[in-house]
């Protein structure tokens, strides 16, 4: 696609978004019940699918699919620019589930599940456990083979929107032999199966975006396995790589578009004449520009096939750090008035201008999806060639 064609595609996407982004969704979502949020998400999802803008990363032949990474980038940038709601309810379906099926699923699995995703089936991810966070490979939810099915028992946590999910991408242990990764198996689980219960987690922000899932001898047919028994770790890597840096292109663009909120906060406090505050705003704006440039450069690298191991960690760590800085400056500019709870804005992501809320929400990015500390390990060990952490250790009192 030439630069002109890309520009005209951008104009097309921009025009469609201007006509279709639900107006006033931020105020409508302030203190809204979860059901209203789900309804907004469903409407917006179907609109985007109808316009072919929800599945640009799917292969050609699927509705909306076959878009180049450059076109996908345009879509995400324009969604950020238009301040459209993020598709939080469908993110796992459209990215994690779909990409896992495309890359590792069988023909039958693709035919069975992908059309459902386009019709609005909600998927959740069951990877993390109470005792397996950063150390995911140590997870203990068991899947025992019984003839043509697995019996699953255990507990998953931090599953986004699991209370609304139709299906779950589950990583479970089928063996305790060998290295911990080798005993993991990847299953597609029907969330209406007997033995599943879901408990939303009430978060410090007032949201209940995440949930715990309990599995009590849940039957999963063997044909729902993705990849081989014991091959789940590799499949999980495909799942986690599915959004290919696009999320951070979008989020860092959103951060850049949100800078004026900080400017308005400064004005509202009557501090816009204070050169020290204005300089701090300028310094942060420069950091945000850098976060955006880094995310863009990462995607360009992927497009060119020049990605290095650890590059994705640089982008995520930098964004998480700058997002915190953004929120911290918001707290300073907002001052005492920012401490009045003006309610929770559902689906509003990280930079709402409700500064205490934004500050707390910024932890989503420094903890989830590989904490800052894990990213630093990856950068040091895989990108900078520092030696890896020794694998064995013993506490003195355990010795």
């Amino acid at each position: 696609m030439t630069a002109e064609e890309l520009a005209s595609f951008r104009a097309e996407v921009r025009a469609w978004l201007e006509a279709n982004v639900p107006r006033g969704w931020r105020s409508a979502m302030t203190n809204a019940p979860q059901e209203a949020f789900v309804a907004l998400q469903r409407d917006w999802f179907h609109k985007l699918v109808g316009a072919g803008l929800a599945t640009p990363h799917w292969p050609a032949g699927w509705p909306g699919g076959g878009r180049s990474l450059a076109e996908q980038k345009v879509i995400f940038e324009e969604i950020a620019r238009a301040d459209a709601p993020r598709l939080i309810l469908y993110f796992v379906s459209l990215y994690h589930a779909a990409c896992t099926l495309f890359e590792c699923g069988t023909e039958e699995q693709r035919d069975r599940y992908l059309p459902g995703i386009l019709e609005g089936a909600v998927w959740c991810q069951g990877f993390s456990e109470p005792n397996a966070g950063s150390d995911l490979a140590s997870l203990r939810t068991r899947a025992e083979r019984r003839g043509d099915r697995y019996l699953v028992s255990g507990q998953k946590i931090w599953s986004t929107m699991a209370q609304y999910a139709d299906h779950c991408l589950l990583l479970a242990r089928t063996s305790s032999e060998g290295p911990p990764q080798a005993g993991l198996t990847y299953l597609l689980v029907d969330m209406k199966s007997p033995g599943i219960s879901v408990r939303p987690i009430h978060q410090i922000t007032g949201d209940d975006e995440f949930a715990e899932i309990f599995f009590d001898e849940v039957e999963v047919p063997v044909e729902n396995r993705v990849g081989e028994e014991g091959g789940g770790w590799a499949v999980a890597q495909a799942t986690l790589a599915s959004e290919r840096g696009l999320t951070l292109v979008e989020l860092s663009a959103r951060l850049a578009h949100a800078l004026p909120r900080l400017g308005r906060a400064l004005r509202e406090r009557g501090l816009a004449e204070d050169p020290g505050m204005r300089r701090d705003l300028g310094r942060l704006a420069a950091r945000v520009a850098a976060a955006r440039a880094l995310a863009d450069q990462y995607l360009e690298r992927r497009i060119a096939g020049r990605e290095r191991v650890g590059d994705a960690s640089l982008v995520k760590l930098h964004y998480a750090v700058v997002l915190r800085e953004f929120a911290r400056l918001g707290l300073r500019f907002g001052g005492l008035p920012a401490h009045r709870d003006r309610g929770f804005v559902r689906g509003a992501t990280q930079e709402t201008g409700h500064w205490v809320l934004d500050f707390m929400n910024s932890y989503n990015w420094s903890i989830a999806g590989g904490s800052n500390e894990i990213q630093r390990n990856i950068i040091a060990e895989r990108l900078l060639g520092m030696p890896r952490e020794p694998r064995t250790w013993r506490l003195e009192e355990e010795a």
Partner: protein
Amino acid sequence: MSEYREELRASARKVVEDAGTPASEGAVWPVAVELGWLLTTLPEARGGLGLGWGDAVVLHEELGRGLAGAPLLSAALAAEALAGAENEAGASWLERLLAGEPIAVPLADGALAAEGDGLSGRLEAVPSAAGACALVAWTEGAEALWLIPRDAPAVAIETPPYWDETRAWCAVELRGVPRSAAVVLARGERAARLVEALTVRRALGIAADAVGGGAQLLELTLEHLRTRRQFGRPLALFQALKHRVADLATELAAAEALLHEAAAAVDAGRADAFRRAWEAKLVATAAYARCAEEALQLHGGIGMAVEHPCHLFLKRALLDVELAGDPESLALAVGDAVLREAG
């Protein structure tokens, strides 16, 4: 990224590496002239390659990496000014520059005053001015852009001792240089546009110096952590130290990405080019300074010894923060741009 850009980088790295640490001006400058580095951004009509600063910054990154003393940035800015001059005022000077006679441009804020018939003022941080054949500078408010020959009357050049000894820093004082002894390169609107172009490109050049220097210093630091052993193991095994270098790598990667984004904005003449260039300079010099600060700490005692190059990077990094636009003013300019967007 173009193949040409990577070739340019490889070629520059070789030249700089062969010139010692810090890469000496005497070894780098003649090769830079011979290899035509100054032609990179010069328009084709002037015999140049007509490439952008997206390519040129690669050279400045490599010079930064090698702590090079060659006044390439200053010369590239002079070439830009001479090529953009009204009528053919700059043509013969451009020839001399391309033949290898440096023309100096101040790398710090500062402007001349036009008093009566004379040009006056003190310009700090002018690299290699003592060996230059002329100086390019502008009057306050960018009213006019001037070339002042080195041998014009009432030009005094000092070499104040700067902590950063990797570059040949000079201060130039003009004490009423007669206008007739100087060459006016541009006035009015044209001068304003040229001065804008020079200050933006100067910011890119210093940001590039910081990106390159930071990358090299990080490599030295990583090497130290890998080889230095305490408590029976390499320092690189201590997670507290690994995380600190991971942070440095992250800041430098972001600075590099923003530098190239800003250079692309400048080359494309985008409306946000100014802001991107100021942001790139702020981010890159802050990352370099942080890297230098941490490198000295992570090297331990050896970094405090003059034989080790750590201090050369530190002094250059701390000075880069102050060059190409006072950081407080740049931060204010960017902050005010955000405030304007806020309506």
